């Protein structure tokens, strides 16, 4: 079960593409403790409890985060579950104390960094207009010194798409364990952009091949998730979006949502499915969510459907306004990524023979955040 706790919707950055409806509210300790209780009551024994901290900027309230982690670790039912913690942060609020706490408590750190200064600072700025790159880079390097696992999440938009190979090159240089490349699905992507995807992704594929060939493999979501899908001939059911069924997000006020990206998105709190005070067992069913299929008729007939993430409800919502209806950019992006991954697989196979499995698996281990790759 995946649970995301949004400690606050407040943030010290004012990123141009942010979809969060910023509010100064901070989660109270009472709400946080009730969420912890409900998580353990709701999760079947033996099942993984995957808790992610999100925002706004969660490290604005580090003491609350510490309290929650401590309460989870000391909960009487803690030993009945493997526990996975993670935090997604903008990387501007960080220090040795935070790093050591995350390390001691096995909290996977994922920092948002869109690439080198020119790319990153074009969107990710403080409220006063200053770019955040310098602070973020310094903190990624600090985190790398202290933590064994540092992941980076980079968002790209139409205006930065062509710069993506340079972004990957920069992120490789940071030597982080994992690089997640995420398109901003809400951006006004055009057909022209979609035609540029194949060469851009292919260039990243070549960078990936070079990296893995020289023995410095790093996980790149764009490539590794599709390599996994190809080898498995598709995504398994448990890897697909389970929003509102096995994935829940809690806002600072204790409202429950089917996905963290839907907190505060849309009009009139339209995605809210309940409140923690009523209990997890009384959440409203997501009547508009059917994760078993995509309603777009083009998807139903597509031969690549099983390798595609057209089931990602929040991505679909931000592209088309519907959880169950994939848009044209996602379609073009997925096809380009699958073609790139196939080329990468064939090239690595020509280099390593059957050992390609080991090369790929050493990088593409399962990700507790997106469940993209459960290879072995």
């Amino acid at each position, binding site marked *: 079960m995946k649970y995301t706790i949004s400690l606050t919707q407040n943030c010290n950055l004012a990123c141009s593409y942010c979809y969060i409806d910023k509010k100064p509210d901070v989660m109270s300790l009472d709400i946080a403790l009730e969420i912890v209780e409900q998580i353990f009551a709701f999760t079947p024994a033996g099942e993984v409890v995957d808790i992610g901290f999100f925002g706004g900027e969660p490290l604005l309230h580090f003491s609350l985060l510490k309290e929650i982690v401590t309460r989870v670790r000391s909960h009487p039912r803690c030993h009945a579950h493997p526990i996975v913690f993670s935090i997604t942060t903008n990387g501007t609020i960080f220090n040795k104390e935070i790093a050591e706490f995350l390390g001691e408590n*096995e909290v996977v750190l994922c920092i948002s960094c869109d690439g080198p200064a020119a790319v990153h600072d074009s969107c990710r700025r403080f409220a006063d207009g200053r770019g955040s790159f310098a602070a973020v880079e310094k903190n990624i390097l600090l985190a790398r010194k202290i933590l064994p696992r540092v992941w980076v999440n980079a968002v790209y938009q139409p205006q930065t798409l062509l710069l993506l190979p340079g972004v990957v090159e920069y992120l490789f240089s940071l030597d982080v364990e994992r690089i997640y490349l995420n398109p901003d699905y809400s951006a006004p992507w055009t057909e022209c952009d979609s035609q540029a995807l194949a060469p851009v992704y292919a260039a990243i594929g070549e960078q990936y091949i070079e990296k893995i060939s020289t023995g410095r493999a790093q996980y790149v979501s764009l490539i590794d998730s599709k390599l996994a899908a190809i080898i498995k001939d598709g995504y398994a059911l448990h890897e697909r979006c389970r929003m509102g069924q096995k994935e829940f997000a809690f806002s600072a006020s204790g409202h429950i949502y089917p996905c963290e990206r839907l907190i505060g998105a849309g009009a009139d709190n339209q995605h809210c499915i309940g409140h923690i005070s009523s209990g997890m067992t009384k959440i409203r069913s997501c009547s508009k969510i059917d994760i078993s299929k995509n309603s777009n008729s083009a998807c139903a007939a597509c*031969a690549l459907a099983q390798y595609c993430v057209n089931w990602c409800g929040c991505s679909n919502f931000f592209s088309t306004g519907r959880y169950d209806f994939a*848009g*044209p950019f996602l379609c073009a992006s997925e*096809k380009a990524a699958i073609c790139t991954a196939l080329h990468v697989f064939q090239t690595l196979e020509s280099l390593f023979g059957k050992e390609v499995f*080991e090369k790929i698996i*050493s990088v593409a281990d*399962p990700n507790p955040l997106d469940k993209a790759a459960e290879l072995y």
Partner: protein
Amino acid sequence: MLERIDRINGGRMELWLNIRDITHSVVEKFKLHPLSEEAVATYTLPMTGRSPEVGEMSERVTPQAMQSPMAIPPEGIRKNFWIDPRGGMKSPHLHLDGKIFMLEEEVYREFSKQLINNVQKRISAAGAIQFNQLLEVSEASIGL
């Protein structure tokens, strides 16, 4: 025992169900023999641990751990190691009907050829969502 190993190392069935036809044809064509349960148990089975590329190798799952009905790591291990739900067998192998078959180079080539052909055919036959469909979607969404 294999069921216990699955519970310790995470799901296995989903991984291979989709390529059952390819797996079956390769096993039949090369008349492969499955690994014995004893041989399977000798492989490294990381239940928790840091990934090899960041240094510390996994804790090994002991026979006692595999006997545990819940396969929950002891507190000491959980406290000191990252959870790593990967399975343990990193060498190329196939699963079919609860059995495990190791892949020699020649067998792997055949398996891989079929796998790649399958994906290539799908890419050739892939459809596409057109950008002008967005308008249609927006209109459809109004009724929801």
